[in-house]
């Protein structure tokens, strides 16, 4: 195989992986701070796609701008969902049962969102027409789809913003403190409950934005969540549950694996490569490629 073809696959994989990375850091942030595995993460992404779609078709908002516009409302939505649902099953009981309760709660939420969307908006797939979706940047022999390139750039930008927020600002540090040592953080005057709400809000806003970016080149339908939630889980586990840079790397890696899998197997088996990689990492490095050992197993 010519080298340029291989490079083409790598570039395509990385471009797709950028958006995976953005959605995965949302999930990783929620897990890292709250120890909640959010099954409904993919559904919030799907909602982000739909809102971006309606902004584009109803008000002529460019989906790339739409993806940014929906960040504040989805943040509020996330905070609300945390307050109304998740906060009620958090705290008190023993950690294992709490985790099971949260898993099942978010699974129920996911079912409601997917199916209610199907009921209200019909299962018919939709798409956003943009000029750049069908164009490509040409760099030597390499083609880079413009929609994917823009989406990639914005995903990286948003991810850097979040990383800066977590490492540079006082609020970000408080958030990390609440994640590492909830009890000690509480003694320092940090409300762990509020930090959980903040983390959930940011996590939901990020995945919705990723959905908006994805909508520039991916069909929009109510069941789109199922495929992506699994990819996000894989990315987050690859990166070590809860690690933000790890999840980002994991997302990029999944894009790469998906793309390179196509070199050896037919298109339908694309995701088998991802799952096999996932299982291999789980067995060989159960704490992820970059992750540390969890405190409570």
């Amino acid at each position, binding site marked *: 195989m010519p080298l340029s073809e291989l490079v083409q696959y790598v570039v395509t994989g990385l471009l797709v992986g950028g958006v995976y990375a953005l959605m995965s850091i949302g999930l990783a942030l929620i897990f890292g701070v709250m120890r909640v*595995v959010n099954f409904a993460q993919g559904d919030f992404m799907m909602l982000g796609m739909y809102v971006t779609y309606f902004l584009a078709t109803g008000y002529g908002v460019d989906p790339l701008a739409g993806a940014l516009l929906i960040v504040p409302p989805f943040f509020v939505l996330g905070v609300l969902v945390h307050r109304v*649902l998740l906060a*009620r*099953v958090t705290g008190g009981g*023993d950690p*294992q*049962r709490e*985790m*099971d*309760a949260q*898993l*099942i*709660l978010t*699974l*129920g*939420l*996911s*079912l*409601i*969102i*997917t*199916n*209610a*969307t*199907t*009921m209200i908006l019909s*299962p018919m797939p939709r798409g956003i027409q943009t000029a750049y979706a069908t164009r490509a940047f040409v760099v030597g022999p390499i083609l880079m789809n413009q929609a994917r390139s823009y989406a990639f750039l914005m995903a990286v930008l948003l991810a850097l913003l979040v990383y800066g927020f977590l490492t540079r600002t006082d609020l970000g540090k408080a958030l990390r403190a609440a994640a590492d040592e909830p009890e000690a953080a509480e003694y320092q005057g940090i409300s762990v409950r509020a930090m959980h709400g903040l983390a959930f809000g940011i996590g939901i806003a990020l995945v919705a934005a990723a959905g908006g970016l994805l909508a520039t080149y991916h069909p929009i339908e*109510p069941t789109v969540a*199922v495929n992506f939630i*699994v990819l996000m*889980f894989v990315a987050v*586990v690859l990166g070590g*549950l809860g690690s933000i840079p790890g999840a980002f790397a994991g997302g990029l890696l999944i894009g790469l694996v998906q793309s390179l899998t196509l070199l050896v197997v*037919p298109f*339908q*088996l694309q*995701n*088998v490569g991802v*799952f*096999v990689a*996932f*299982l291999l990492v*789980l*067995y060989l490095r*159960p704490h992820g490629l970059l992750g540390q050992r969890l405190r409570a*197993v």
Partner: protein
Amino acid sequence: MADRRTTSSLRRLVPVAVVVLVGFVLAGVLQERYHQRILTLVLVWATMGLAWNVISGYAGQISFGHQAFFGIGAYATVLLTVHAGLTPWVGMWVGVAVAVLAAVLIGVPTFRLAGIYFALATLAYPLILRIVMDFLGYQELAIPMVRDHPARHMQFADPRAYTVLCLAVFAGTLGLSDWLESSRLGYSLRALKENEQAAEATGVDTFRSKMLAYMLSAAPAALIGAVYAYAVLFVVTPDAVFGVLVIVQTLVVCLVGGAGSKWGPPIGAALMVPISETLDATLGDRFPGIQGVVYGAALVLIMLCAPEWLYWRIRGMVMARRGERTEPAVVSGPSPARVPSGAVSRGDAPAGALLEVRGVSKAFLGLHALEDVSFVVKRGEILGIIGPNGAGKTTLFNVLNGFLIPQRGEVRYKGERVSGLPPHAICRRGVGRTFQVVRTFPHLSVLENVMVGAFVRAPAPPAARAGALEALAFVGLRHRAGATAGGLTTLELRLMELARCLATGPDLVLLDEPLAGLSRDGVNVLVRLVRILREGGVTVVIIEHTMQAVVRLVDRLVVLDHGRRIAEGAPDEVIRDPAVIEAYLGKRWLRYAEDRRA
């Protein structure tokens, strides 16, 4: 309590028989095809729920991929019919065998993962199977119609036949669950669900127990999957058997009804399946996702309002009405009775040394928790291990009972090298231990906690029960046998943990700070018990942080500091040893003490 138990195994089967009978009568009475269909579906999901309940309810290993086995059963049976002309009556057992084999292949690597990792890993398997089935071209696998002797190919004109078939599989699974709940494996699973490390230390082979449970839960899932293909689907698709809705329906019936009990899934299925089917039939055309919304809402509401789930809530209310005996927490003190019969010296080691620790070292990321520690525990003695905070005392116990493997050196028990063996194997060889912070199985009763230990010497439940009661009587906790472990006082917890450890029939017990947090009376009770134990021939190694209590009790002391053994000998000598005083009080105090002596 004991005589109630003898007839209970038969009496417990009565409700099982009643439920199956009701199902049978319903199958005969219901005339409409639609009602038969609902009954069939109730039985299918009740069975699937019971199957899931074995691994996730009893053993607490949440599996999000149980539809893998359901689908394997369905696909294997139908593929064998299509390609080999094999009747499904045989094919479904092949499906079961394949599913059990798959459970082994999945379980061996996946059970190395704990908790959340296990749940996430199980997500991948049905997805892979689904994609592979799609790829192999089995998107729609129709069951071929047979005209001659259709019954031989599991094809019936009368829908009642299918209902009875499902009822048979359901009855078998209910019987399996019933047996499991009172068997040794059942106790092991519930124990490891509550606290895996404590279960290991109490002689439970947790890996083997989980594997067995996984295989036992794969088999009925495959069987009902095969029957489902013939009774309901007629055309098998990857989505119908490997899809998300399969695991969702399973979860819903289990969680609504109550996981961890054989009655939960049938209750949940009897409630949820008719509701969702009726909704689907009346509103499904106009609102295509109504079933999913209802299931999702059920999950959310259950978690918010009754996370302990229906069966357990009803049971709790019934128990409350009966007025569960709650006796005051009076500790009667150790009975004059002899040491539990399990705990007597067996075997013939070289006279004197029961346990030899030779040059053991253990470091964590460069921090030397233990460095070249050697000492001998003599048969029949009480050996104290003392040392300041962080001296490596608990790490030493973790090496002795197999939680940790030393990097250098070895541990020999009765002349046999035990370092490197898993904790349950060391426990079964006769080394019992308790923990610095008591580790109970909080949702089990005191008796059941101790029974988990008693199973090491008595595999049959009645014998284990007798052994557990004996151990409870020894520590003076027999009157609390029926209480839930979560509600005990600190002293009662320590005594229960000691009883659980003694029930395993140890020759050597390792007690990790058994006096911590106890009142003076409590300390006296425990000290007296340890003395009686020794008189009964049990060797005791006891970690203590505070010196006073231990100096009176022990025959010899080993002193650890910064992972090294700095002194060993009779208590009087050791506490005058300058190295020991320095370790505890620092150099300046040592100088002060020496000045005064001089």
